[in-house]
């Protein structure tokens, strides 16, 4: 490296430019190694990213995204006037906030309690069991779920009957989903979500606990004053990453569990399911692309602002 730079004589500016060129040249092997992955990303993420202008167009199949005539804000006016957007934003935000908070609380709680378990085989079996739902597809889960809540045959209603309660048909009730979906979500993700907190706890210096013990702290004080503060960076980063998708719903979950059950849309329709339905069922490119554009832009601006705030308060925690 240094030899190559010293070969260039003359004006300092020219020299630095030459050295930059030389450096860039020496990076070419790295660029070559990144290129295949970048090519995939370019084709399937960046090109569609430019296609986002379709939200401002009067799309027709013949002219494609680039050739179709501009329509200004017409798609957005239709979307706002349809009155759908408020409900969609409301549901998407509400569920995501519940998911983020509950997910974090349960994952941290589970990680702390699992780290307290001393028996190795117990820990291993428990972790295997709690990770498993995370790897099952929502198709499989919806099959099981349907059989669990089945009004006549389901396990839950069998239990209800045993307790002398009337069976519930959840597919006709809207309010109950604000409880059911978070429970499902915790069931599926909390176990595996705890792995990152678990590893962070494993990384805490044991001497902290020893000296706390000497000062007469009990285990609950240790958790409150040592474990939780030590988990703070991980909690902040995971939460920030989740906030980046604050208006992006879990399409897989909502579509598999609720499907196209219009009865429940009031409490379960989110932007992602709306975009999908409008695109595939009614083929309304204008409305669906406008909703999608709104979602992308909102998420982007939101995470930029949050990240900026975090940078102000605690620069170490900022994502970028």
């Amino acid at each position, binding site marked *: 490296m240094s030899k190559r730079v010293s070969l260039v004589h003359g004006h300092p500016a020219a020299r630095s430019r030459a050295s930059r060129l030389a450096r860039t040249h*020496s990076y070419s*092997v*790295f*660029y070559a*190694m*990144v290129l*295949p*992955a*970048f090519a*995939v*990303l370019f084709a*399937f*993420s960046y*090109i569609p*990213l430019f*296609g*986002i202008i379709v939200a401002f167009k009067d*799309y027709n199949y013949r002219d494609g*995204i680039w050739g179709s005539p501009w329509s200004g804000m017409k798609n957005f006016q239709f979307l706002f006037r349809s009155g759908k957007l408020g409900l969609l934003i409301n549901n998407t935000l509400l569920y995501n906030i519940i998911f983020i908070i509950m997910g974090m609380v349960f994952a941290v709680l589970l990680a702390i*309690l*699992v780290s307290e378990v*001393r028996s190795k085989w117990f820990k291993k*079996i428990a972790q*295997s*069991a*709690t990770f*498993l*739902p995370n*790897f*099952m*597809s929502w*198709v*499989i*889960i919806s*099959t*099981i779920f349907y*059989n669990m809540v*089945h009004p006549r*045959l*389901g*396990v839950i209603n*069998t239990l209800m009957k045993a307790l002398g309660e009337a069976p519930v048909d959840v597919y006709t009730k809207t309010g109950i989903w604000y409880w059911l979906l978070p429970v499902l979500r915790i069931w599926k993700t*909390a176990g595996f979500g705890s*792995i*990152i907190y*678990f*590893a*962070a706890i494993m*990384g805490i210096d044991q001497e902290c606990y020893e000296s706390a013990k000497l000062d007469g702290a*009990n*285990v609950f004080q240790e958790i409150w004053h040592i474990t939780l503060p030590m988990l703070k960076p991980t909690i902040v*980063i995971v939460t920030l990453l989740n906030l980046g998708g604050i208006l992006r719903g879990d399409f897989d979950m909502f579509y598999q569990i609720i499907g196209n059950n219009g009865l429940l849309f009031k409490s379960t329709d989110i932007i*992602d399911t709306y975009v999908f339905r409008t*695109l595939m069922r009614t083929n309304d490119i204008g409305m*669906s*692309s406008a909703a*999608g554009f709104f979602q*992308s832009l909102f998420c*982007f601006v939101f995470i930029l602002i949050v990240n900026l705030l975090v940078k102000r308060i605690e620069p170490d925690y900022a994502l*970028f």
Partner: protein
Amino acid sequence: MTTQIAPRRKRKKMHKDRLLLNIIAYSFVALFAMFCLAPFLIMISGSLSAQSAIIVHGYTLWPRDFSTRAYDVLFAAPDVMLGAFSVSVIVTASGTVLSLLLCSMAAYALGRKNFGHRNKVAFVFYFTTLFNGGLVPYYIVMVNHYQMKNNPLALVLPGLVSVWNLLLLRNFMKNNIPDSLIESAKIDGAGEFTVYVRIAMPLMVPALMAIGFFTAITYWNDWFTPMLFIDQEQLVPLQYKLYKMLNTMNALAQIAARSKDFNMPKLDLPGETIKLAMAVVAAAPIMFLYSFIQKYFVKGVTIGAVKG
């Protein structure tokens, strides 16, 4: 040695507070583990029960009136299920191998300190997670510009690069492969690519196992991509097949119920148990793979993630 003996002595005279925490920890973790497992037990036991028992007693944790009728019906025409199964296997295997190659190679370059532009390039990757075009432009570009309708490549190519996995691999490589090792190999005359293949790859194995498993799971579980792009029956992978069969099941049951009008032989499908049997077939490969890979999770994932 002394440090190993110390905790054992402490356990003998456990304080009240630690005992209480232990009771809470063991019972909570055990309950949550059972809560996570129970639905799968119900799925398996339901698929092995007689339909009639389920209709009378509902679903139970243990099979009632053991019967393999659901599996018999499911595999009565084996080529249907096996076809979907093999599409899934081919897509998953090729996608996972290619993805690991692309991601680990890029991760290696992005983790090398000598690559002066590494952070800028990493941001180009990261940016796609912050802002994306959404479903509509993606769908139009895929169908109209790339001709991906009913193209098996549509199932493999878009999922090849997961930015999270790539950055996780990069962190793993930064934290676990000492610079001195790479530099000494380079002094011996090895190029970057040789170092990547000969030194970095073997050292990345725990991370590659874990990430490879996640990638495989993502491919195996994907029902959405085929729903968007695949109409041809012989190209439909297992999960989407399962989804489609579940959706048509109710319709089928209705048709079967009315079939006495026509002179059709009574079908008598064990509808409920077949659904569960299908779910078992779709879940079994994951459970099988999971039992082997699981030991790499904590090692492979967290080392890359925590020190971010």
